C-alpha cells in the first residue's frame, strides 16, 4: 500500500519540532498567516464546513456545523475551549499530539479562535499530564514572544489570549458542560441541556468546545482547502484520524490513518499494528475507547452482512449495537485469547463507577450496582440471575442520564454480555475454575 497521507503527524519525527523555529521551518504557522491575512472568519468556517471534519473527541459531530450553531449576540464575548481532558481508557492520541507538536495545536487554536471571533481561548488539559502542560506553556510563551499570540497578532489587529488550564483529574470533565463548570472553578457536574454551550457556555457566554485533534486539523484545512480535506477518507468520514492502539498487538502506539482503512489491514499489516503477539490469536476488539461496545473477532473484521469492516464512523457502527460498535475517540484495544472478558468488563465498570459524578440517580447508583455484580461474578460468587440483571440495569441507565457517561458505562457491559454470554455463564457455573489465577474460558470449538 502507498504511503498514506499525514495531515497531523507529518512533522512529528522532525527533531525539535516542539520548538517554534523548527516548527516554522517545517511549514508551521503558514496556515495562520493565510487565515489571518487573506481570509475572513466566515470563509474559514465555510472551509471547515466543506471539509466535513467530524469531532474527534468521540461523538463524531461535524465540526463546521457545531461552529455554525454558535450564537453571536452583540457585546457578549465568545469563547473557544479546547478539550484536552483525554481520560478514556485506551485513548492517548491527544496526549501524544500535544507532547510532540504543541505548536500545531496552538496554531489551530489561533485559527479557530479567529474564525469564531474569540479573544480568549482555553486549553483544558487533563491534570495528570503536568509535563504536557509545561510543554504547552513553554510553546505559548515562545509564540507570544514571536508575536503570534497576544495583542495585534502578525500585525492584523487581532488579539488572542491563550490560557492552559490543568484539570483536576476527573474523567467526567471531558464532557463539555462539565468541563465548562470545572473551568469556571466549580464542581465538574455536567449541566442540563438545553441550553447548549453554543448559546450559554463558559460564564454563560456562547462557547465552542472542540477536541485537540479536531482543532489541530484546521491549519491544514486552511492551507489546502476544505474540499481537498474532504477528498481524504471515505464517504462522510473525511480526513485522517489518530488511532491510539494498545493491547496484545506487536506495535502498539499512535497511528494516523486515513479513514476507510480496513480493520483487518490495520491490525495485521506491518505498517500498522503488525498483528497479534506471537503464538496468540485475536479474540476481541474495543474499537474506540473503553466506552464503545466490545466486538468479537469475526464481527470486528467483517460486518454482519459479510463486508469487510473499515475504520470509519459509518462502517464501524454498521449493524447498530447488535453487531456494530463506534469509532469513538479512536482508542483501539485489541485482546488476544488470554483475555478474560468478564474481568475486563469488571475493570471497565470499576472505572465508570469511580468516575461517575454522582449527580443523576441512574448513573450514580447504576454504575455502582453493575460494578458490584460484576465483582461477584468475576470472584466466583455470581448466580445466573445476575447476567440478566446486568443487561436490565444497563438498559435502564442507557439514555436516561444527564450526560453520556451513563451510556458509556452501560454499553461495555451490555455488549460484553451480548457477544460473550457463554463466558459469563461459565464464570457463574464454574466458580472454582473461573477464579483460578489466569483462568480464561476456552470454548471447545476454538481449540481445534
Amino acid at each position, binding site marked *: 500500500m502507498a504511503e498514506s497521507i499525514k495531515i497531523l503527524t507529518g512533522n512529528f519525527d522532525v527533531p525539535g519540532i516542539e520548538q517554534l523555529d523548527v516548527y516554522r521551518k517545517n511549514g508551521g504557522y503558514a496556515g495562520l498567516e493565510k487565515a489571518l491575512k487573506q481570509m475572513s472568519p466566515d470563509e474559514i468556517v465555510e472551509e471547515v464546513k466543506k471539509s466535513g471534519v467530524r469531532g474527534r473527541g468521540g461523538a463524531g459531530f461535524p465540526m463546521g456545523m457545531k461552529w455554525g450553531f454558535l450564537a453571536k449576540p452583540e457585546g457578549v464575548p465568545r469563547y473557544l475551549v479546547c478539550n484536552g481532558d483525554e481520560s478514556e481508557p485506551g485513548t492517548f492520541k491527544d496526549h501524544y499530539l500535544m507532547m510532540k507538536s504543541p505548536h500545531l495545536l496552538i496554531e489551530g487554536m489561533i485559527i479557530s479562535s479567529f474564525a469564531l471571533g474569540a479573544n480568549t481561548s482555553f486549553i483544558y488539559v487533563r491534570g495528570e499530564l503536568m509535563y504536557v502542560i509545561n510543554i504547552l506553556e513553554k510553546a505559548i510563551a515562545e509564540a507570544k514572544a514571536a508575536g503570534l499570540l497576544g495583542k495585534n497578532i502578525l500585525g492584523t489587529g487581532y488579539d488572542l489570549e491563550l490560557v492552559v488550564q490543568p484539570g483536576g483529574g476527573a474523567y467526567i470533565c471531558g464532557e463539555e458542560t462539565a468541563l465548562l463548570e470545572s473551568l469556571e472553578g466549580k464542581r465538574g457536574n455536567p449541566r442540563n441541556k438545553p441550553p447548549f454551550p453554543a448559546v450559554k457556555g463558559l460564564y454563560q457566554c456562547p462557547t465552542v468546545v472542540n477536541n485537540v485533534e479536531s482543532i489541530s486539523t484546521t491549519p491544514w484545512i486552511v492551507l489546502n482547502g476544505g474540499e481537498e480535506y474532504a477528498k481524504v477518507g471515505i464517504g462522510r468520514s473525511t480526513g485522517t484520524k489518530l488511532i491510539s492502539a494498545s493491547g496484545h498487538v506487536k506495535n502498539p502506539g499512535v497511528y494516523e490513518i486515513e479513514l476507510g482503512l480496513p480493520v483487518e489491514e490495520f491490525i495485521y499489516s506491518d505498517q500498522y499494528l503488525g498483528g497479534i503477539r506471537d503464538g496468540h490469536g485475536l479474540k476481541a476488539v474495543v474499537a474506540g475507547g473503553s466506552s464503545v461496545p466490545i466486538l468479537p473477532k469475526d464481527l470486528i473484521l467483517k460486518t454482519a452482512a459479510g463486508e469487510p469492516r473499515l475504520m470509519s464512523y459509518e462502517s464501524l457502527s454498521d449493524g447498530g449495537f447488535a453487531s456494530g460498535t463506534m469509532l469513538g475517540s479512536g482508542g483501539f484495544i485489541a485482546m488476544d485469547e488470554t483475555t478474560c472478558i468478564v474481568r475486563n468488563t469488571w475493570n471497565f465498570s470499576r472505572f465508570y463507577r469511580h468516575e461517575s459524578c454522582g449527580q443523576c440517580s*441512574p448513573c450514580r447508583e447504576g*454504575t*455502582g450496582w453493575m460494578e458490584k455484580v460484576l465483582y461477584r461474578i468475576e470472584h466466583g460468587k455470581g448466580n445466573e440471575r445476575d447476567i440478566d440483571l446486568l443487561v436490565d440495569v444497563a438498559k435502564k441507565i442507557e439514555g436516561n442520564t444527564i450526560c453520556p457517561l451513563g451510556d458509556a458505562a452501560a454499553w461495555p457491559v451490555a455488549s460484553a454480555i451480548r457477544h460473550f454470554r457463554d463466558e459469563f455463564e461459565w464464570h457463574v457455573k464454574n466458580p472454582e475454575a473461573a477464579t483460578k489465577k489466569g483462568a480464561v474460558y476456552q470454548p471447545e470449538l476454538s481449540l481445534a
Partner: protein
Amino acid sequence: MEENKFKVTIDGIETEVAPGTTILQAARQIGPEVAPPAMCYYKPLEKSGGKCRACLVKVAQGSAKDTRAMPKLMASCITQVQDGMVVENYTNEEVVETRKGIVEFLLLNHPLDCPVCDQAGECSLQDFAFKHGTEAQRFEEERRTYEREDIGDKIQLHMNRCILCYRCVHTADQITDGRCHGVMYRGDHAEISTYISKAVDNDFSGNMIDVCPVGALTDKTFRFKNRVWFSKPVDAHRDCDKCSGKVHLWYKGDEVIRVTGRKNQWGEVDEFICNTCRFDKKETADWVIEGPAKMQRHSVLSANKYRKDAIKPEYALKHAAQNYKQIDDSRPYNKSLEEVKESEDYKALMDKNKEFKLLNK
C-alpha cells in the same frame, strides 16, 4: 407579555400554557393525575431539577412544526414545551418501565428504615416508590453507610437516607449566605456535607429540613417525638420581622411539637420561614391560629382527620370529555343479529371457520 399560548397534549389531555413553561408545570396545571413525580425539582429553588430522572416522559411529538418524537426520554422538569407538543407520561409503557428502574436506583442504597424514620408519612420517596415502584428489590449487595452528622445544633444529617437531590445544596446556596454546604466526592460515594463539618449558621438554615424529600435532614427538636400522622397540623401565623411567619403548627394534644413551612399541593414550601419561627416559638400563645391545615386526601397525614369531598370534578369532567369521543359505536353488538349476519366481517369469519374445520377433519 405575549398573548400567544402553546397547545400541549399530555396523556391525551389538551391544555394551553404560556411559552417557556416546562412540561412538568404544564402537567401540574392539568392536575395531579397526569403530573410526573418529582424528587429533585423544587419550583422555588433556581437550577433545581434534572437530577433524579423520576420525571422522565416521552415526547411523542416535538412540536406542531417538527412532528418527530424525541429519541430519548426527556426530563419534564427542565424541558420547555413547544407549540403542538404531545407528551406521554403514564400512558407510555417505556416511561412506566423506566420509572420503575428509577425507584429501584433510588432505593438501592436507601436503608428502608421507615419504621424509625421521622420523615415517614410525609416522605416523597415513600410516595414515589409506592406509586411507581415494584414490590421486590433485586439488590443483594452491601449498602453504603455513613455516620450521622450534626449540621448546627438544630439539624441532623442522616446521609444513609439521602438521595442526592441537591435541594438542600440549592437552598443553602440561594437563601443562606456563605457557601459551606455542598456535595463532596463523586459517584456512589458522593455525600452531602458542610465544609469541613461546619455548622450552617444562618437564620434560614432550617428550610433545608423542609425541602429534603427524604429523612436525611431532620429537625433535632422534633426527632422521635411523634409519628407525623398522629400529630395534627393547623395553619397559623405570627408577626415576624425576618420572614412571612406563615407556618403549619403540628400539635400532639395541646402541645406544639413542630413548626414547618406551609407546603403546597406539590409538597413545596412557597414561603420560607426563619429559624426563630421554626425552632423557638413552640407555644400556642406565640401564634394566631387560622384553622386546620388542608392536607391532601391521599396522604396518610389526613387519615382520621379532615376530609374534603373525594372527587375532583374539573378533572373528572375533562377526562370524560376527552375519552367519551373515543368510544367506537360501530361495533357489531350494536346491530341486530340479521345485520351482523349480512356483514362482511361475519362472512369472513365463517369462511375461516370452515377452513379450520376442513383442516381438522
